[in-house]
């Protein structure tokens, strides 16, 4: 199925989790946070949170700013 990770389409397996999406992105797991469809998904739920087709996954971290 297709999902959006940080605005870009990616093919992932059915029943893919947030943890799988992070692996696809190659993101570090420390210092990041994840929202799916505009809702925060706490780190403790990443491994069991199953993504639906067309899920919008946002993976954010801190950058220079302000």
């Amino acid at each position, binding site marked *: 199925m297709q999902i959006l990770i*940080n*605005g870009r389409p990616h093919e992932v397996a059915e029943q893919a989790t947030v943890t799988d999406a992070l692996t696809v*992105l*190659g*993101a*570090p797991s*420390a*210092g*990041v*946070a*994840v*929202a799916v469809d*505009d*809702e*925060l998904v*706490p*780190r403790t739920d990443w491994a069991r949170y199953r993504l639906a087709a067309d899920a919008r996954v*946002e*993976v*954010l*971290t*801190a*950058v*220079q*700013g*302000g």
Partner: protein
Amino acid sequence: MTESVVDEPLVVGGRKIASRLIMGTGGAANLAVLERALVASGTALTTVAMRRVDAAAGTGVLDLLRRLGIETLPNTAGCRTAAEAVLTARLAREALGTDLVKLEVIADERTLLPDPIELLDAAEQLVRDGFTVLPYTNDDPVLARKLEQAGCAAVMPLGSPIGTGLGIRNPHNIEMIVAAAGVPVVLDAGIGTASEAALAMELGCDAVLLATAVTRAGDPERMAHAMRLAVEAGRAARLAGRIPRRYWAQASSPAVD
């Protein structure tokens, strides 16, 4: 300073902040320049923004702040609605493990002025959710009061729009905010040079937050040092109590016999 000159530390939301100069990290040419500027500023609290992970870019700024022992203050820069700002704050808390948030809800890109309606809405939601909220606000005494009533831990009025370096355009409004506030007042945005940071403190602000004035200065490290001195000088002058302004001269030497 001599030992007889004492001052209270800045306290925001129950935590002591060891410097009254809060820094931003935006605009620095690279991390090495930023590091020298942060060290020269003496800051203890510094903002970061939340953006999409770029696997190639890494997490350099966080590592830098940790290494320097500087507390991070995530912001909600770029958010235009209360809903966006609340989600960004929650992501920042999750990613960084801090309940501090510099709340920014911007009305438009041209002025980067806060949207007061969305700002107050977001502040109320985040306070209910347990955040220590530091809102970037207009230099409006009424809005500052409402933000404090909503439970914000500080109010952070602008001196002038972000990045303009126009200084403090309405010092009287800043004085009115200070006079009424029961929480720390942090002058946030618009500072261009050291005298303006000193003025903010002389007007009674508890701290100054700035970034561009340092990071885009010709010599960021030297300007950071200047800002540190200015904030300390302005604070000392405020505590000392300035003389009243007079219309006519008043001799400072004894009259001639």
